[in-house]
């Protein structure tokens, strides 16, 4: 156990009085005197010896002892994930529809069978969410909207427009009709569900991110955009009310 030139010390075996290296006394007792039960004083001494041996071993290896392969891998993973997460959440929004500019016009099919255009909502603010039915955060966002914010948005005359990303991003999930009925959607005023087309995706969500939102003012200008709507309903409502 002694590393880097540290010489191991000897200890007297309490059973046979032989001189044994301190890092081997436990093995010696276990193999040569398997029935021997040391008293508490020797146990304590053994404990101290082992702590001392470990300390000496640590002292000679230093930082190398701390930076085991697993720890290095873990540290690298944490740094990479944290870096990407910080970048992902702080970078500017998607390419085309951007804050301060007029929201690009688009049309969509709504879940009740009709067709709508964004311009039809001019005159009051619109919060648009691009989602997939299989995305758990989008489900949470809808859940939070229904239970905590629908009435507030209704009072403030803000429309919540939930659009399924074109073709559910090519992945399987429940149908939009099922998703809508699961959350009690029945065409209530101020809450619209529908399907976006590929062209709208190119304009608003070219990277295919789920849970991307846009807040559009009553004059049709993009006020805010981001990803992860669940915790932002309150902030979006506050911003919409001033515009």
């Amino acid at each position, binding site marked *: 156990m002694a590393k880097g030139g540290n010489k191991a010390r000897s200890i007297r075996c309490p059973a046979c009085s032989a001189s044994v290296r301190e890092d081997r006394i436990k093995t010696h007792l276990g193999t040569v005197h*398997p029935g021997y039960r040391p008293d508490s004083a020797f146990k304590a001494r053994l404990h101290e010896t082992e702590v001392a041996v470990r300390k000496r071993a640590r002292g000679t290896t230093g930082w190398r002892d701390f930076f*085991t392969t697993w*720890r290095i891998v873990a540290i690298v*993973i944490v740094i990479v*994930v944290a870096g990407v997460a910080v970048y*992902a959440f702080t970078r500017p929004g998607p390419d085309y529809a951007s804050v301060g500019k007029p929201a690009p016009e688009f049309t969509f099919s709504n879940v009740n069978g009709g067709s709508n255009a964004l311009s039809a909502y001019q005159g009051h603010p619109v919060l648009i969410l691009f989602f997939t039915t299989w995305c758990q955060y989008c489900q949470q966002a809808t859940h*939070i909207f229904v239970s905590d914010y629908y009435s507030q948005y209704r009072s403030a005359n803000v429309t919540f427009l939930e659009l399924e990303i074109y073709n559910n*991003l090519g992945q399987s999930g429940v149908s939009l009709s099922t998703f809508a009925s699961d959350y009690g959607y029945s065409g209530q005023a101020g809450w619209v569900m529908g399907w976006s087309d590929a062209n709208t995706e190119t304009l608003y969500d070219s990277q*295919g991110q789920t849970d991307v939102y846009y807040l559009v003012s009553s004059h049709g200008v993009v006020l805010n955009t981001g990803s992860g709507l*669940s915790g932002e309903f309150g902030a979006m409502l506050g911003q919409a009310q001033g515009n």
Partner: protein
Amino acid sequence: MSARPPACLPEPGAFRVLFSHRAYLVAYPLSVVLVAVGYLLLLAWVATGVFGFWGVPFLPPASVGLAIGFGILFPLLLLLDVYLWKHPHCVISDRGRHTEGTTIGAVVLGILPNLLCCTPIVPTLLAVFVSGTTLISISAPVQHAMSVYETLFYAVSLVLLGIAIHLAARRMDLGVAQDESLPEPDG
């Protein structure tokens, strides 16, 4: 002090030894509550971006199950490791010493679905290498898998934590530890 081989299922004996000490008996339930609540807050924070109890009721049942599972298992592993660190003479050998990999794996798998599904992380990372429809065709299946197999990820994470506990328990020399936990004879 016999260096007997570790039992195949050493956990019950190791837990008996551990909880025969009053300090560990008190520390365990406290740690369970602390870790479970901490994990619930962490998952709610990742999911909603808001730190606090507000987001907890909106967590899916699988995430709540993971938090409770972590709350029960993680303190056990932690207390076992603390016990073995404080009582080096109760350690059989270096066998199973490196439980870090398993523990890190459990923690990473437990948080992976929340990090990689439905956040900008995967698209942003992939956007460095590819763009356009190729980007979507790669990132969408990754996010979809993370979302759909979330429960499986959580289950594997808890199994890994169980393995780490098993490995830690195997390191305990039950003979020595049980002798030590008994009261000293008079005289």
